[in-house]
């Protein structure tokens, strides 16, 4: 790999970063030191390189001085490397001849109290990047076709909204949902805050639109088993579980009525996941009446036919439409798409580990989702707010906030993050109760009531006018006492210790990620410390991921309310559309390259490559790199005995140049 020895004209641009750098690093000394390096034609500085004025200065100097290499000494390349490269390209310089010298995060910030050492180190960092730029060669960006079509994993509000937007744009969408119906947690929430809309009234039009959309193929009761990545394409292997109910089903519900499972003396009992365990369900069921697709499903794990070797066929016998078919088999189908949106949502935290709250030890201690199911007119109690222990109406209800949220780091039983929505869920349920049955006493025991969104404060204030009582303090113990549940809490605002006798205690449980580790592994996705999908950048890019073509939306990325979920679903759909839009994929030029003169076709590189992006051409006996698959990780370069293969911009001479520049031996002047 011979390096160009011709004379270079490199420009060094040093950013003050408005004091973040200049307060610690002596900019003038750094500028003078940069000016002395070989091939440096210009060393200048600017208060804000990332500002329009700074970028303008960069472009002016490139044009006027005919620069063929640039080092911008500023913040981490993660912030503006792409921006500066884009600006350099507009000014006519090859963008890949521009390098960032990170003298903020890795110098001025890290050595704030040692300005002299920080300045000396900044000089070395700039020198290292100049030495590297001197050895860089221009690269041009090539493109490759992208497979059309998007797969949206997760049929909650996030998945539905993203699918509709992409389908309306003309993209072919495959919406994959694990449970028998789309709708997700929103469909179970009865009402939404702060508008008090009925959740289904706002959701079912979208569900129908997605269900009937000609561009959306709906795969329900289906799970993604694997995802294989190839250049510009994802191949998803989806396993569609059999419903054992054909499309002939007319929805008469006779099968569910007669199914013996979960009846009083039946040995097989199963809790309804839909009603969050508040009620039981039969083996053949439909989660809720407006479920889409409108198909009943047989849960083979809890069905006498499957579990007690064909002991019962009641549903088949009573079915007027002969829609029951026990012989249905799981189908495995592959879906080729260009982009994938992960919208797998959340599940509610199980408060059992918090033993002092008594969840799981008393029927009248519920979570907010269970309480929502109780308020649902079609729910297990037909909308009546009653004590599960004896069915009497609940006169006093005590809600407890931060259950499983805002816990200690490293405690496996709780989450450290705040789940954002539980305060408003509690306020919603509380004021709904007060409107339905004003004489009910409703307490909300909170730590910080977070009503931060649009219309939230007004909603919170209205609940107070309706007589909801707010106690600032979380309870010490909840235990049965004379037929009621005594909630022992000290109210910080009044300094009074209250023993609240409650008919129902509703725990605002945290939102935690759904278990999708297998999916994440196959998509090469990481998780953040809280267990949610790791977004590309928490602040400025929350809907893309580190993997090209894979996007994330909704609670899969972290707890949020429906408003934010819709925004994220829109953003993820837009990012996916932009990615697919051009129909072709711009290839990352910083990938491996083989020098045919040095390659001995020894196959060492093909053995270590994790993306099978390099193969030896049998005739020419030279290793060939598939630039659409190569990710530029550089493992091949290390094992190549003749240095024939290397990743552009990270060749051995270029890296050695950086080491030498930073080394103590070559102390900068």
């Amino acid at each position: 790999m011979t390096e160009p020895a011709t004379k270079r004209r490199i420009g060094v641009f040093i950013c003050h970063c408005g004091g973040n750098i200049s307060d610690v690093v002596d900019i003038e000394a750094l500028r003078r030191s940069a000016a002395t390096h070989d091939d440096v034609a210009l060393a200048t500085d600017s208060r804000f390189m990332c500002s329009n004025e700074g970028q303008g200065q960069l472009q002016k100097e490139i044009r006027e001085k005919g620069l063929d290499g640039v080092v911008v000494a500023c913040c981490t390349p993660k912030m503006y490397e792409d921006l500066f490269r884009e600006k350099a390209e507009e000014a006519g310089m090859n963008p890949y001849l521009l390098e960032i010298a990170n003298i903020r995060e890795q110098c001025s910030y890290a050595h704030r109290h040692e300005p002299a050492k920080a300045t000396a180190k900044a000089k070395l960092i700039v020198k290292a990047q100049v030495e590297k730029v001197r050895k860089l060669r221009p690269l041009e960006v090539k493109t490759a076709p992208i497979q059309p079509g998007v797969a949206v994993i997760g049929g909650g509000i996030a998945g539905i909204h993203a699918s509709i937007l992409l389908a309306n744009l003309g993209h072919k969408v495959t919406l994959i949902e694990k449970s028998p119906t789309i709708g997700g947690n929103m469909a179970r929430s009865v009402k939404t805050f702060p508008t008090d809309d009925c959740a289904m009234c706002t959701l079912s039009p979208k569900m129908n639109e997605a269900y009937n959309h000609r561009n959306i193929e709906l795969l329900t009761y289906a799970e993604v088993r694997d995802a294989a990545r190839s250049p510009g394409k994802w191949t998803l292997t989806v396993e569609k579980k059999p419903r054992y109910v054909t499309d002939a089903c007319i929805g008469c519900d006779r099968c569910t009525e007669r199914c013996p499972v979960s009846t009083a003396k039946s040995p097989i009992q199963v809790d309804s996941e839909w009603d969050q365990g508040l009620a039981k369900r039969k083996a053949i069921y439909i989660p809720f009446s407006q479920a889409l697709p409108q198909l009943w499903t047989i849960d083979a794990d809890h069905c006498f036919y499957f579990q007690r070797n064909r002991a019962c066929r009641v549903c088949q016998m009573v079915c007027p439409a002969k829609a029951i078919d026990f012989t249905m088999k799981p189908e495995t189908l592959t879906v080729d798409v260009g982009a994938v949106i992960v919208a797998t949502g959340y599940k509610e935290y199980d408060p059992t580990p918090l033993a002092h709250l008594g969840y799981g030890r008393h029927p009248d201690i519920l979570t907010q989702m269970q309480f929502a199911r109780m308020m649902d007119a079609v729910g297990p109690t037909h909308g009546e707010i009653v004590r599960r222990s004896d069915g009497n109406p609940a006169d006093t209800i005590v809600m407890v906030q931060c259950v499983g949220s805002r816990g200690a780091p490293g405690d496996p039983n709780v989450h450290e993050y705040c789940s954002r929505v539980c305060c408003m869920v509690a306020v919603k349920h509380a004021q709904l109760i007060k409107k339905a049955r004003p004489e009910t006493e409703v307490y909300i025991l909170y730590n910080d009531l977070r009503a931060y969104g649009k219309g939230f404060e007004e909603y919170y204030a209205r609940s107070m006018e309706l007589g909801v009582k707010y106690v600032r303090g979380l309870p010490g113990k909840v235990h049965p006492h004379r037929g009621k549940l005594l909630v022992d809490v000290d109210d910080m605002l009044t300094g009074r210790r209250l023993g609240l006798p409650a008919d129902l205690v509703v725990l605002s449980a945290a939102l935690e990620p759904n278990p999708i580790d297998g999916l994440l592994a196959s998509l090469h996705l990481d998780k953040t410390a809280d267990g949610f999908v790791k977004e590309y950048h928490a602040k400025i890019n929350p809907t893309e991921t580190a993997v090209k073509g894979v996007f994330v939306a909704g609670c899969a990325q972290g707890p949020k309310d429906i408003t934010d979920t819709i925004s994220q679903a829109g953003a993820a759909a837009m990012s996916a559309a932009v990615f697919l839009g051009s129909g072709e994929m711009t290839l990352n030029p910083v990938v491996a390259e083989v020098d045919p003169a040095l390659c001995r076709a020894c196959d060492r590189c093909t053995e270590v490559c994790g993306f099978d992006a390099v193969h030896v051409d049998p005739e020419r006996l030279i290793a060939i790199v598939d630039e659409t698959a190569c990710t530029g990780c550089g493992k091949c370069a290390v094992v190549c005995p003749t240095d024939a293969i290397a990743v552009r911009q990270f060749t051995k001479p270029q890296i050695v140049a950086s080491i030498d520049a930073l080394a103590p031996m070559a102390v900068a002047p």
Partner: protein
Amino acid sequence: MKYAYFPGCVALDSCKELDVATREVAKDLGIELVELTEASCCGAGNLQEKNPEAALVLNARTLGMAQEKGLDLLTVCGSCQLYLARSREALENPETRERVNKALTKVGRRYDGGVKVKHLLQVLLEDIGPRKLAGHVRRPLGNLAVGAYYGCHLLQAPGTDAFENPEDPQGIERLVGILGGSPVSYAGRTACCGFHVLTVRRDLAVRMSATGLIEAKRAGAKVLATPCPLCHLVLDVYQKKAAKAAGEPLDVPILHLSQLVGIALGIDLEKLGVSRHMVSMESVTRALEDEEVVKA
């Protein structure tokens, strides 16, 4: 079944009957007790506050004595169990042990970790086990309503959560069942008796114990069994004052756990030292005798 027996301070002084009853029950159940006669006080929180390092060193010395005999440590007091179990947990860290041993070697002692600290309740429920215990019962407690008063320290001791749910303990209730009695459960059974402020704020301790006693009485308990002599002192000795504070008569006899077991094993009540209690045991002995008449 052999243990290094750590009676603590109170069980050899004002609650002598606890030590006596424990030895009787151990003998009957075939548990060999090797008393650590030279073991020091567990610190009971006071030494931990005045000189935390010294508390750790003294407890390491006690654990070292048990380790010399190759035995696990048996305690009969909630506070001893808490502070010894805490020291044991801290001493699982090699660096801590090294630091502590530097001091201990000055008196020719050392501790190398690995000794378990078990309260009598855990030994009865787990090591002896229900079947063997039931086998030894000669005088089932019958329908004598026995309530538990766990106190707080035993439940908060590291390791207790392995055999008990600190928020909703059932250990003593199960034990009463095994002994043929009828347990009475009430929420206040995990309340704190206030012993640790007895000399500083006696009124507080009295009123705290009163709440627990009233609730036990209302729940129908005719006698309370407690795994901690400190709780026993407050509940028994100050019960009259508690009654005055609560403005309601209180006559709830208080038994040490080992005394309750001793009674069920048929050991003579006098031998178990129940006569030393301030609240007379007369109602219990009468109930037991009715039981015997019925049985005989």
